[in-house]
């Protein structure tokens, strides 16, 4: 039977197993909306701004490992989606974004609501397509999902002109597609893996550094097995938190600009660095010349262009983390050699000394609410088992430092692009994917206002997100840099004319709470968590002057960390 292009598109989504489409209608996609309306398999979530749709799909993807799907109209619909597409691209998140386009015959004529979506998105997608003929529609959708989810994941845009959705054709969804120019490597090179294992066993001061790739590979359990077998210290990037249990004694927490003292010092002094699914980002590396000066480096990554991009490595392995780590485990089991226990014991003694500095300590006797205290309490109250999304700023770093993630896919934040406005819509995607789970959105009074309109979406779909607003009346992260590097000239970083967040939440039909005293933090959080089916917006009035420590200033090495003033005097 012949179907319209719109019907074909919706059938493709269904056959791809898509649960939710996040979107917003408009002229160019009205046939698609009409087709969505006439079926129940694919559920549509109506956001309040297309940026929200992309972040929601992104949160869905990060918390499930499945691709997120977005549908927006041409022109302004597509341009509004760009921030979310770029966010997903920077963090390698699998997404398929369908953008409406003007009729094929009108393309290039500056038609109403026409933008060159393929051109505009090109630098921030893994790939994109313009479907000019209905005969190509189903195959293109299949290719889009295939590209988004294999190899190094990423967003794929499919631009669909209105007439293509209107025409009719036979429908058949290809079981699989192959693209002659695209063959992501899965298995690592055996010789390289052998070399890596030799180097790992020869280490006196080893360090394992892992990132988001472990999470996308689903390699958390194999990584944990190998790390325990070896008894080596391990650190996670901001994107890799949860890939190895944070509460385990071998975990040194996060590394990098706001990483722990022990993680960064261990990086600086290690003699063998085992980098797995991490991309040596500048917030992690600091000044390249000072990076791991004594280490020989193994790097496992599925994307050859991640390898030796900023830091030259000694044993590159292109492949999927789970495959490679399992192979390493096999070789380690066969090997008669074991790690040098005496050297390792000495190394741990040194690490434990660094640990004893207690770099995340903060003032617990303050009469003001310390943001760290809120997050620590959130961790305790949710027993470490919540999904936590975050916006961008100081609150993001404190969440990363104080919420100890023991499981992957639980910590959802924008690392690469650092997109304020991400947290709330991302939490919507997470909550839809995990209706019974506790989902907390850690945010700041500046970030939350970038996508605040999504409170309305939360109301429509009854999403009981717990918004933890760490309200310091400042763009805190900006203020911190201005304090450190601009002699305290706080240019435009003070947040004036803030709304009454309690009333704002209430006007959207939610519950609002304002918490001003440290002693109220825990009771309020407990109360909010009891309100299982309601969104609770918790406005915590926090200490305005608090800074994130440790901190490595840009252009410095791991050994040049600043600790909090109190620590540094000690």
């Amino acid at each position: 039977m012949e179907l319209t292009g719109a019907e074909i598109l919706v059938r493709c989504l269904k056959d791809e197993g898509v649960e939710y489409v996040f979107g917003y209608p408009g002229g160019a996609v009205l046939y698609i909306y009409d087709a969505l309306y006439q079926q129940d398999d694919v559920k549509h979530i109506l956001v309040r701004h297309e940026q929200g749709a992309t972040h929601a799909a992104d949160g869905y993807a990060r918390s499930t490992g499945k691709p997120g799907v977005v549908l927006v109209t041409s022109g302004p619909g597509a341009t509004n989606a760009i921030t979310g597409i770029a966010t997903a691209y920077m963090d390698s998140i699998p997404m398929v974004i369908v953008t409406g386009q003007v009729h094929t015959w009108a393309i290039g004529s500056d038609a109403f609501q026409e933008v060159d979506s393929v051109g505009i998105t090109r630098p921030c997608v893994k790939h994109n397509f313009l479907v000019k003929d209905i005969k190509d529609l189903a195959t293109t959708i299949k290719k889009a999902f295939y590209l988004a989810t294999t190899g190094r994941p990423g967003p794929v845009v499919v631009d669909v002109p209105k007439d293509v959705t209107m025409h009719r054709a036979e429908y058949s969804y290809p079981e699989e597609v192959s693209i002659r120019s695209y063959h992501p490597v899965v298995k690592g090179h055996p010789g390289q893996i052998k070399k890596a294992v030799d180097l790992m066993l020869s280490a006196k001061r080893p360090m394992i550094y892992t990132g988001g790739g472990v999470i996308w590979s689903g390699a958390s359990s194999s990584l944990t097995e190998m790390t325990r077998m070896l008894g080596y210290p391990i650190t996670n990037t901001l994107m890799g938190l949860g890939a190895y249990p944070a509460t385990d004694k071998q975990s040194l927490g996060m590394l990098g600009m706001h990483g722990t003292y022990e993680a960064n010092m261990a990086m600086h002094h290690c003699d063998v660095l085992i980098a797995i699914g991490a991309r040596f980002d500048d917030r992690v590396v600091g000044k390249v010349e000072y990076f791991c000066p004594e280490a020989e480096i193994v790097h496992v990554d599925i994307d050859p262009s991640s390898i030796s991009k900023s830091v030259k490595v000694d044993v590159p392995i292109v492949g999927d983390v789970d495959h490679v780590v399992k192979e390493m485990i096999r070789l380690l089991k066969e090997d008669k050699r074991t790690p040098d226990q005496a050297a390792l014991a000495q190394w741990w003694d040194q690490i434990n000394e660094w640990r004893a500095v207690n770099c995340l300590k903060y003032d617990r006797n303050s009469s003001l609410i310390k943001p760290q205290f809120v997050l620590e309490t959130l961790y305790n109250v949710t027993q470490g088992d919540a999904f936590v999304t975050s916006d961008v700023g100081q609150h993001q770093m404190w969440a990363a430092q104080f919420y100890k993630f023991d499981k992957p896919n639980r910590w959802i934040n924008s690392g690469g692009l650092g997109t304020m406005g991400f947290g709330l819509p991302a939490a919507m995607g997470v909550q839809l994917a995990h209706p019974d789970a506790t989902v907390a959105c850690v945010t700041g009074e500046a970030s939350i206002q970038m996508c605040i309109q999504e409170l309305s979406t939360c109301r429509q779909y009854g999403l009981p997100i717990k918004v933890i607003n760490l309200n310091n009346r400042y763009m805190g992260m900006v203020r911190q840099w201005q304090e450190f590097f601009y002699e305290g000239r706080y240019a435009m970083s003070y947040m004036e004319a803030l709304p009454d967040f309690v009333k704002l939440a209430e006007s959207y039909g939610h519950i609002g709470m304002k918490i001003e005293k440290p002693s109220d933090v825990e009771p309020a959080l407990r109360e909010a968590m009891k309100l299982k089916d309601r969104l609770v917006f918790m406005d915590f009035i926090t200490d305005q002057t608090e800074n994130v420590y440790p901190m490595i200033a840009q252009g410095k090495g791991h050994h040049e960390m600043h600790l909090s003033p109190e620590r540094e005097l000690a």
Partner: protein
Amino acid sequence: MRHIISILIENESGALSRVAGLFSARGYNIESLTVAPTEDPSLSRMTLVTRGSDEIVEQITKQLNKLVDVVKLIDLTEGPHIEREMMLIKLRAAGDAREELKRLVDIFRGHIIDVTIGTYTVELTGTGEKLDAFIQAVGSTAILETVRSGVSGIARGEKSLHL
């Protein structure tokens, strides 16, 4: 160092802009770029000349390979290879200068492909240096117009870039 990268790429609209966009977005330089379909009309062959340190050229080839439209590529400068560029050059050729110019064209194994009372149009093929040398030899006052194709390259011997 100068590198000549040969690319087999899907012959689709937009493929060229992906390559060009990659270079501008990442700040790599393109010295020249030529592209045309191959005997298989679904594929285009691109020759791209760039300059950069070994690390940069390694990143360039990795990033190019990552483009979904790129089917295959090689860095020709890694082995023995032949490079050619074609130039069409229009010269002021009147009176006495005509004989002298004709002799120069012969020396460089060029062809005069169009003639008027006052001009010669010359076709010349060779390495970039040979074309530069010809331009030098005729001198700037004689030149009315030059069109250069950019470099095309191919590996020597059995080695070939195909599917």
